[in-house]
């Protein structure tokens, strides 16, 4: 499986770089890796083909060949195109100017419609709306019970009438919303196959009688190649306004999102990430792009960094590091910044490729971070600036002062030297990326 596309590309290019100049064929090789990653992520075969044609056109251009870090450039082009396709802005669920707003949830069996209906009711309620749920799945055993149980946790009313058909339920639901002064109607429909003529006609009939402001197709994030066919079929029959991608708390790459966007252009409006009713979120196009490529949640990390880091300080720090000024003093400042991002294990998880580096992950934990910090704090500023002065007696003093051992101090200094080396190597490669603050740690692809 692909742990990280960027790692694969890096490896491919490392092999190639030894040859000296990169050729178009080399870039094609990289594009091939991208193809496999997309297919493995369940992006529809035809969508992959078209998508890569676009990428290749750009990637084979001068842009990449002239670059010092072609792997990162290929990833950048792919990410760019992917984000473009996904839509730059998160799309919203819109409300009608004349209440009640009517929202239909439709889709295949078991995709998560009923749970999403309840989650949506909860979200709208939190926003000060007055939702009414309509239980219009009269087929699946206990579907009405399910919606009622969920709604009772939210204190949101459910409309249902024994013996009524789904069209009647929708019509009566509107009347009920007027009676109860409710301003949003969320209609939970039965799961159905897109090729089930009878049931598709039923949905059409419902929407004819009670027109929708939003018709959201609920799609399981684990869906494979079929996502395109399903979405297209539903769209031919219904005025779909968007997609809800469910079960993203799993580990599926979610290539269906890309397929759906590419083929229908429908916005993905919401995602769900759990069985509990608060697990509904706005869709983040960029984040999805990273996920499909298996690149870790770099964007969450960057976002988090933006929220928690002292910008002036990090910029100053980055400048110093970039100018080759990387001493224990900067290292210590970096650690302090990193700490603000939260527990280290979490931070590591968000860095691409870290998934594959299980061992390293276990070595660097918050406890060892505390010890490293203690060692650094026991040094004088001079010692941190110029670690060369650290002779045996100074090291002993530092170990005592920090409650660690001389071995630990030695190990840290050795690791630091290696880091310095890496820093010097990456210095040349570093280029500020648009809209992304330079972070005081090694560059992320």
């Amino acid at each position: 499986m692909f742990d990280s596309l960027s790692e694969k590309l890096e490896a491919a290019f490392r092999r190639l770089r030894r040859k000296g100049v990169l050729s178009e064929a080399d870039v094609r090789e990289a594009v091939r890796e991208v193809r496999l990653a997309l297919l493995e992520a369940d992006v529809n075969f035809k969508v992959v083909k078209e998508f890569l044609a676009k990428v290749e056109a750009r990637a084979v251009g001068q842009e990449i060949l002239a670059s010092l870090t072609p792997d990162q450039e290929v990833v950048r082009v792919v990410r760019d195109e992917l984000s473009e396709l996904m839509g730059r802005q998160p799309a919203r669920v819109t409300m009608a100017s004349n209440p009640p707003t009517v929202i239909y949830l439709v889709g295949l069996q078991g995709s998560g419609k009923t749970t999403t209906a309840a989650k949506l009711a909860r979200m709208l309620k939190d926003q000060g709306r007055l939702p009414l749920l309509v239980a219009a799945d009269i087929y699946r055993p206990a579907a009405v019970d399910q919606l009622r149980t969920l709604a009772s946790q939210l204190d949101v009313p459910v409309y249902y009438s024994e013996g009524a058909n789904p069209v009647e339920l929708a019509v009566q639901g509107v009347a009920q919303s007027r009676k109860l002064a409710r301003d949003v109607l969320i209609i939970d429909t039965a799961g159905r196959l897109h090729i089930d003529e009878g049931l598709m006609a039923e949905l059409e009939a419902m929407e004819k009688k009670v027109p929708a402001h939003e018709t959201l197709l609920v799609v399981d994030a684990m869906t494979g190649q079929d996502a395109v066919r399903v979405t297209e079929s539903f769209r031919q029959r219904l005025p779909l306004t968007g997609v809800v991608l469910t079960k993203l708390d799993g580990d599926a790459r979610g290539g269906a999102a890309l397929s759906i966007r590419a083929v229908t252009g429908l916005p993905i409006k919401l995602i769900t990430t759990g069985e509990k009713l608060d697990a509904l979120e706005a869709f983040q196009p960029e984040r999805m792009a990273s996920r499909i490529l298996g690149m870790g949640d770099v964007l969450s990390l960057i976002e988090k960094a933006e929220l928690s880091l002292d910008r002036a300080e990090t910029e100053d720090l980055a400048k110093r590091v970039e100018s080759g000024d990387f001493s224990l003093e900067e290292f210590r400042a970096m650690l302090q910044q990193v700490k603000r991002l939260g527990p280290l294990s979490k931070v590591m998880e968000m860095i691409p490729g870290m998934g594959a580096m299980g061992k390293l992950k276990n070595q660097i934990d918050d406890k060892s971070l505390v010890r490293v910090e203690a060692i650094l704090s026991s040094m004088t500023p001079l010692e941190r600036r110029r670690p060369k002065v650290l002779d045996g007696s100074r090291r002993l003093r530092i170990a005592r002062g920090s409650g660690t051992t001389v071995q630990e101090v030695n190990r840290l200094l050795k690791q630091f030297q290696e880091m310095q080396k890496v820093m010097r190597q990456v210095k040349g490669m570093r280029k500020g990326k648009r809209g992304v603050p330079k972070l005081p740690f090694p560059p992320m692809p």
Partner: protein
Amino acid sequence: MPGLWERLRGGLSRTRQGLGDRIRAVFAGRQWSDELWDSLEEILYEADLGVDTVSHLLEETRTLVRQKRPKLADEVVEMLRRAMIVDLAGNDHDPWYLPPERPVVWMLVGVNGTGKTTTAGKLAAMMKARGHQVILGAADTFRAAAIEQLAIWAKRAEVPVVSQAIGADSAAVAYDTVTAAVARGMDLAIIDTAGRLHNKAQLMQELAKVHRVTGRALAGAPHEVWLVLDATTGQNGLSQAETFVKTVAVSGIVLTKLDGTAKGGVALTIARTLHLPIRWVGVGESLDDLIVFDAKAYVSAILGETQGTSE
């Protein structure tokens, strides 16, 4: 049950979207030429077979094509068909057979919404129709109305069901089900469990516990653990299977929702790499919409029929 497969195939062609139709349109009666590899590749990918299996199948077929130099495209499709059937070998086993020691205990596991509860109901009805005494256990104590849902299926199947209140310990329900099956002289107990995503360690541990506790109620139970896999699932199906296999001793796959347009090709990948047989196929939401898996018919549902596959 060829009748049901017929129905399934009928469903597929009714939509005119079956891959089989496409393959026929591209290949039937044509001379073989190398450009057709791309079409074959596309058809395999669109059936959700995934990168590894597609390369493996194409490699097998290429080797044969090099050796035998077929003239017609249909012949190549036949070679591919045989390679796929080989991957599914070991699937011919009578799943209706119950060993003499009773009660036999089956457990249904899988991620959310794949069709576990529905399959439990279908299996109960069909085993009962074969003259067995069946009891259901509602060990999904988590999902809203899951217990009620299974109770309705039990009623349809006309079998008893063991349940506790929502939020109860699912292992306790499983235990109760097995002891009830023993006490009442049942032939088969079928335990429905809550859907869980395989990457949630805690939920998987809970499942392991249900499995363990079942064994405490009756040595050797559960005798079979069926992994219920939704045919619309893409490559994630493989990591689902890998994790479930590690957590509980999965004996085979139930591939549901094959009455849609998805082919569930990842099941073939699972069968090939994890050596898990596919046992049943779900083809609808009614009591009798469950058929025994048949490798040849399944491959035909992916590749379509050609002259070589008259049945």
